[in-house]
């Protein structure tokens, strides 16, 4: 059947209570009882939870065919842990696993042969890139993959839609009891926000680290009371890829111009006042927005109350210069932000549920004034695609995109109109990740388009010298340069479901026919 965005969702996928997308806020006041883990009590005192190896932990946790395991992605492309665990599982011959990861990328390419041989038959993830993206796009996974938002993953676990049998939590440090953290280790990733829900809802929790500190290893976002086993390995990851050095700010004039216009949008809308809240991404233009905000903040003599998100150096710098009162961190993108969450008071680690879960009693995203996001494609209904390339291949991640877009009072997309020969603004996106009703402004190098539904924003921006343009005109310009692309062709086979944050299906990805 068709969902409210007119996207066809095959009926056979609508089982076990799965519904089609009915609008970004359709599940307001939805009531449910939270899932709960099966806990094996540790009544006797004194036992260390250290086990000798990953294999021993897997055996003791009782991992069997058909179970669900989980990983987080705080070690980013430097992650060794997930690959190591999967290699051991593969050697042990365990099959038919459902992998519930917060994101998968380059570091997890060893999963591809395991997808092909039936070790892994189901996947839930936010990001899918590179080799895994290709394998999923080509339909190599037995069941369609679930593409989930960061908030949606927490929701899926808390509602019991996904029940994790064994969670493998890579940690920069831990003590022998399992008090684990992204700090105080040899390879710090800063925070463990995404692993919080795994620790609290998985039946068995295995912490894997290369740094064992004396008890108590505090502060510990992952707490010993939730942990069954601790494994020490030689190295959890490649430090150069866990957190990059300070990202260089772009010198690309187009990106700078877009960033400047984006900052102008922010500065001229009603929420830009003392104590405003703000989140931005790590892409070139979004990153540069922060530097252009400062002069406006100086001029108005205002400060940002809190900045959230994947934290990056420019945000840390503004925070240290006194432009931001508090930083709220669910992911540390670079070394300066890892160091800051380690050292700075008023820079706080939060869980992913606190960050973005749509089905708790109020995640921080709901209180954002502004979020600046990127896009692979935007259509003339303002729907955004950040998952599927214009060639049909899965190559992106919703991450917190739909969560923050739905939550923020003003959601701004910054993207060049054309990338190489592909237009970003088009009549229809290849697949919808973020519904247009939650997208307010699109800033491109050819002008700024405001969602006509946001009359308040349009009115405010008409008073400025911003180059306002309609989204249809942007699509026209893009087409005049790139031509109208031939429609992609797909087989009927659905290779992935794009789940909206509330658990409904916003779109599906079918296997592309490659020519």
């Amino acid at each position, binding site marked *: 059947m068709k969902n409210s965005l007119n996207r066809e969702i095959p009926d056979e996928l609508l089982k076990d209570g799965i519904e089609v997308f009915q609008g970004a806020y359709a599940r307001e006041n939805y009531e449910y009882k939270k899932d709960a883990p099966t806990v094996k009590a540790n009544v006797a005192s004194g036992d260390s939870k250290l086990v000798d190896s990953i294999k021993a932990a897997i055996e003791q946790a009782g991992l069997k065919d058909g179970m669900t395991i989980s990983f987080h992605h705080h070690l980013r492309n430097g992650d060794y842990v997930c690959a190591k665990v999967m290699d051991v599982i593969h050697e042990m011959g365990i099959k038919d696993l459902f992998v519930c990861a917060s994101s998968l990328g380059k570091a997890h390419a060893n999963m591809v042969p395991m997808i092909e041989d039936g070790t892994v038959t189901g996947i839930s993830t936010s990001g899918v890139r590179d080799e895994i993206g290709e394998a999923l796009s080509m339909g190599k996974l037995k069941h369609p993959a679930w593409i989930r938002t960061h908030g949606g993953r927490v929701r899926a676990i808390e509602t019991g839609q996904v029940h994790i049998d064994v969670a493998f939590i890579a940690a920069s440090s831990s003590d022998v009891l399992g008090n684990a953290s992204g700090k105080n280790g040899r390879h710090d990733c800063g925070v463990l926000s995404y692993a919080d829900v795994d620790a609290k809802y998985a039946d068995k929790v295995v912490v894997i680290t290369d740094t064992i500190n004396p008890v108590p290893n505090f502060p510990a976002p992952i707490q010993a009371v939730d942990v069954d086993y601790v494994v020490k390995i030689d190295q959890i990851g490649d430090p150069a890829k866990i957190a990059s050095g300070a990202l260089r700010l772009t*010198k690309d*004039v*187009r990106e700078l*111009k877009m960033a400047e216009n984006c900052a102008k949008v922010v500065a001229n809308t009603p929420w830009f006042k003392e104590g405003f809240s703000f989140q931005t991404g790590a892409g070139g233009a979004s990153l540069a927005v922060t530097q252009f905000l400062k002069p406006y903040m100086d001029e108005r003599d205002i400060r940002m109350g809190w900045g959230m998100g994947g934290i990056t150096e420019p945000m840390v710098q503004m925070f240290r210069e006194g432009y931001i009162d508090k930083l709220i961190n669910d992911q540390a993108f670079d070394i300066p932000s890892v160091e800051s969450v380690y050292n700075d008071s008023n820079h706080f680690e939060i869980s992913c549920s606190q960050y973005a879960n749509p089905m708790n009693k109020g995640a921080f995203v709901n209180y954002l004034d502004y979020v600046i996001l990127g896009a692979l494609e935007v259509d003339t209904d303002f729907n955004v695609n950040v998952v599927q390339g214009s060639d049909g291949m899965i190559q992106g991640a919703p991450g917190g995109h739909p969560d923050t877009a739905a939550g923020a009072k003003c959601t701004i997309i910054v993207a060049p109109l*054309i990338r190489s020969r592909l237009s970003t603004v088009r009549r229809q996106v290849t697949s919808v990740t973020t519904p247009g009703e939650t997208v307010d402004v699109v800033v491109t190098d*050819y002008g700024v388009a405001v969602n006509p539904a946001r009359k308040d924003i349009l009115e405010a921006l008409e008073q400025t*010298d911003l180059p306002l343009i309609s989204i249809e005109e942007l699509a026209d310009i893009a087409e005049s*340069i790139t031509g109208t692309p031939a429609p992609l062709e797909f087989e009927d086979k659905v290779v992935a479901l794009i789940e909206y944050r509330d658990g409904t299906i916003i779109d599906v990805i079918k296997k592309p026919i490659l020519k």
Partner: protein
Amino acid sequence: MKRDIRRTMMFLNAQKASLVKDPYVYGADCVILDLEDAVSASEKDSARIHLYHTLKSRDYGDTEVWVRVNDVYSDLFVEDVRAAVAGGADGIRIPMTETRDHVIKTEAEIEKAEKDFGREVGSTMIMAALESPLGVLNAYEIASASKRMMGIALSAGDFRRTMHAQTTATGEELFTARGMIAMAARAAGIMCFDTVYTDLDNIEGLRRETELIKNLGYDGKSVVNPRQIEIIHDVFTPSEKDIREAEHIVLAVEESKKKGIGVMVVDGKMVDIAHVEGARRNLKLAKVAGKYKGDLA
């Protein structure tokens, strides 16, 4: 589209689709699609074909489009001019112009092409780059060689080479050339443009040099990187005070004309009819910069 304010002229390799598809987004007043130095000898034909199709298919809005052709006496020149005219370029920039014959020959080829391709005869402008001592010494006769002449421009790389001069941060080696070119342009009633500033990361240096050439009377400057556009435009944008003063002068002079008075006092300063031109230019500069919305420009 032809314009009367030309603060920036951005060079772009005509061969590169990614560069020429939409350079107007950077906001330069003019772009110069280059068939000369930016294109390697083996790629001249493909660049010319690409240039033609770009000119035919892209709409650059109110950004003026120029084409830098190859040397007037090279075997590439005629085809370069024909492609540019057929495509509908606003003007042709002649490299290494040394005598008025360069202009005359260019004009002849343009006129032929205009007739061949059904463009209005006389609609394609010419700009000449002066890149050698001989060119600079002949600046006036070059500037006044044709009605099509829109401007002359200093091109400092070759000028320094042919002068055996050294590059200085303050531009001493260019002082005579800059002065002569500006004077020749004004004498001929056309515009003059300064050379590119090649130290891309040196924002302050670019600003200083732009202030210098503006004070000398130049209309604008060549640009090789879009990062430089905003700085140059900023230097050429009159201050709020200058805009107000210019408005007062234009209004006062118009008023006094009606009364038959030649000299008057505006904002405490003596002003006569000679001040009007500068005042109007300032208002035009302010208008293109978006700082002036009135209709006196």
